[in-house]
């Protein structure tokens, strides 16, 4: 039997690594809420990969670390505490585990190494104009023609499609009585003829989401995950694996710490005392909520370690921390908004926003609104909770 893991020593090791090996400019980008892109993520992923930490959640045989849930949780916490970027998730946390679980040996060999090293960049083709929270209503179709599928349709909210190589995509291959059936998962190269990617202008002034149009796109059948018509199962598997994501409250606590420093700096001096104290009080209330969420997060990790069910914990964590993130961002906006909000420009209005130092606080406030919308909106989470509480 293996020796028991010394989690404190592990935490020290990860912290030491993060502080010494993550390039200062990358940590500075995270600390100042710069929008993360492949240019920032890739060098960090390369460093982690070369250290053998490329995939904390993968089994060793596929190049992962083989860490247990507590180690992964500690790793994620330390990354946030040290201002290191959270690893780009679409490959490592989403499609990678699906390929490991359901992929053919050829698919594993072809796709996993690129995800691990960061050479290949992935995005998620799930949402459509008429299938957001109600994902199973998706209408993008794939028609079998020999050894190929012909894909027609449109995806939206596709984060990072503009800098990705591949899109794992849910398409409809047949119309069944139950709309969750007849859905298939395809891996589509984004340089395929017939694909058009258009940026969506978002309220935060950053470019991160896109519309992806698929016009008669030919996809080899070899790029299908698992069985035809079973895509919903694989998509659900992917989401199930993400259920512990909300257990890591460290990013929110870091967000709080940065905002507290902002308030102290921006509102120093006696003339600002009342305003400063009002904002400090709001941050204290946010901190109190986060401490409760952190306690629940630890319960969730302990439950997973013991093989116990998580029940409603993921929904509770998602609901409460998403709102607290927003509250903290509002405090930051109230600290600097008076002088910065009026200088927040439309991207196409000439001159980059970067000309106003600190404008990221305003952008981040806008961006944070998405927290209660994506990953199962607050309303969906409340439906889930109520269904279980009421027993129907």
């Amino acid at each position, binding site marked *: 039997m293996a020796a028991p893991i010394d989690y404190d020593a592990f935490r020290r090791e990860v912290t030491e690594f993060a502080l010494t090996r993550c390039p200062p400019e990358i940590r500075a980008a995270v600390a100042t809420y710069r929008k993360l892109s492949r240019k920032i993520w890739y060098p960090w992923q390369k460093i982690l990969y070369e250290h053998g930490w490329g995939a904390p959640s993968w089994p060793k045989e596929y190049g992962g670390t083989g860490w247990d849930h507590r180690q992964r949780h500690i790793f994620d916490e330390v990354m946030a505490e040290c201002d290191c970027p959270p690893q780009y998730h679409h490959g490592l946390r989403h499609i990678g585990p699906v390929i490991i679980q359901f992929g053919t040996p050829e698919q594993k060999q072809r796709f996993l190494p690129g995800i691990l090293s960061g050479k290949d960049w992935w995005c998620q083709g799930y949402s459509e104009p008429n299938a957001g929270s109600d994902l199973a209503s998706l209408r993008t179709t794939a028609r079998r023609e020999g050894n190929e599928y012909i894909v027609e349709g449109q995806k939206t909210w596709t984060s990072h499609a503009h800098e990705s190589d591949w899109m794992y995509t849910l398409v409809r291959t047949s119309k069944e009585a139950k709309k969750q059936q007849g859905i298939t998962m395809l891996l589509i190269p984004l340089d395929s003829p017939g694909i058009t990617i258009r940026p969506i202008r978002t309220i935060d002034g950053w470019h991160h989401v896109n519309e992806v149009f698929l016009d008669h796109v030919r996809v080899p059948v070899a790029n299908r995950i698992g069985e035809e018509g079973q895509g919903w199962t694989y998509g659900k598997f992917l989401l199930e694996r993400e259920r512990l994501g909300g257990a890591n409250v460290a990013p929110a606590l870091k967000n709080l710490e940065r905002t507290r420093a902002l308030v*102290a700096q921006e509102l120093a001096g006696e003339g600002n005392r009342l305003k400063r*104290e009002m904002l*400090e*009080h709001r941050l*204290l*209330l946010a*901190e*109190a*909520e986060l*401490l*409760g*969420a*952190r*306690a*629940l997060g*630890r*319960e969730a990790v302990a439950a997973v370690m013991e093989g116990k069910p998580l029940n*409603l*914990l993921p929904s*509770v964590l998602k*609901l*409460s921390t998403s709102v607290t993130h927003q509250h903290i961002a509002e405090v930051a906006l109230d600290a600097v908004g008076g002088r910065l909000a009026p200088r927040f420009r439309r991207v196409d209005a000439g001159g980059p926003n970067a000309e106003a130092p600190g404008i990221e606080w305003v952008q981040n406030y806008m961006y944070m609104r998405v927290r209660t919308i994506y990953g199962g909106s607050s*309303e969906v*989470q*409340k*439906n889930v*909770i*109520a269904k*279980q*509480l*009421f*027993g129907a």
Partner: protein
Amino acid sequence: MAFTATPLVGGDAFDMAQRLGLEADRALASLVDSAEQAACLRRYWDSIAELGWMATAVPEEAGGAGGGLADLAALVAGAGRGGLPLPVTLACAVVPALLAGAGEGRNALLADVATGRARICAILPGAASDGTGSALKLAASGGRLVLDGTVVGVETPPDPTHLLIVCGEAEPVLLLIPADARGLAGGRYQRIDGHLAQDWTFGGMAVEPTWILARGEEVTRRAEEARDLGALLTCIEGVSAMGAIIEQTIDYLSNRVQFGVPLSSFQALRHRVAEMYVEYENLRGLVGQTLRAASASDCLPWRDIAFAKLRLGEAGRFVAQEAIQCHGGMGMTEALPAIRLARRVMMAEFEYGDRTFQAARLLAEARRCAEAA
């Protein structure tokens, strides 16, 4: 299966306390005469004394059970869920904690507390005055110490025998005053949450030397610790009550039919309950962790407790208010146990430091740290 709350601390003591709480709450709700209600409370007080509740945290050398925080937590959690309107935290935890700092004769006093013979009311620094009279003050006059002023709304056991007071600016003292001492006046009443309270007026009464149990900075330290212990146990009581409130609200909404359908079919109400649950869970997590931290250490983790008590103010009031709203007109009556529990949770905020008190001390500490850095 509909929701059933998991107790923070379960076990036989929890079950017994809950049973007694439910019984007392029901008995009290059936009475309208205030003298009968007072007699009813006294009967339940005698029952819990006989069951040894007040001996729980009293050391064995003083005739107690020498129990710890977990034992106290089980009692207040059970009592909180049942809605027992007796000062369990005060009598079983706060009073013994204060008396632990008394000098000679401490064990004899604690022995009386353990049996329930001594029924003690505690007045901690910062106790409320009524705004018209002056606050409680201890002053030296002609070589003697004199108590003056009023305190109001002090939670009390039935028929209090003594007052335990922490006061004095120049030198803090711990005083134990017989409730029938000359110069002491008070009016007792049942608070809206069913608990007994008393207003006390000290008409310039001279302090007898034998009343002084302890003096010096140690008194202040112990008083602060007793307050934190009280705050933590109040949080445990509150979480426990909130779990029961949510269960009963779900039950009400599932059975109450309006517009031809059960209220539980309306999404607006289901979402309110989901929000109640999220707030409850968040507080349960925080209080559970604080209880574990407090049990594992010799001194109470005051910051954790302050955050938990602050959140009891926020989350507790939210759950109570939403429960009232979900019950519609019935939420404005005291007919249902859920609403009586909701009222209790609202009142519990003001015991052992409300949310603004806790926020102020946390912000003050943050300021001290920032200035020191």
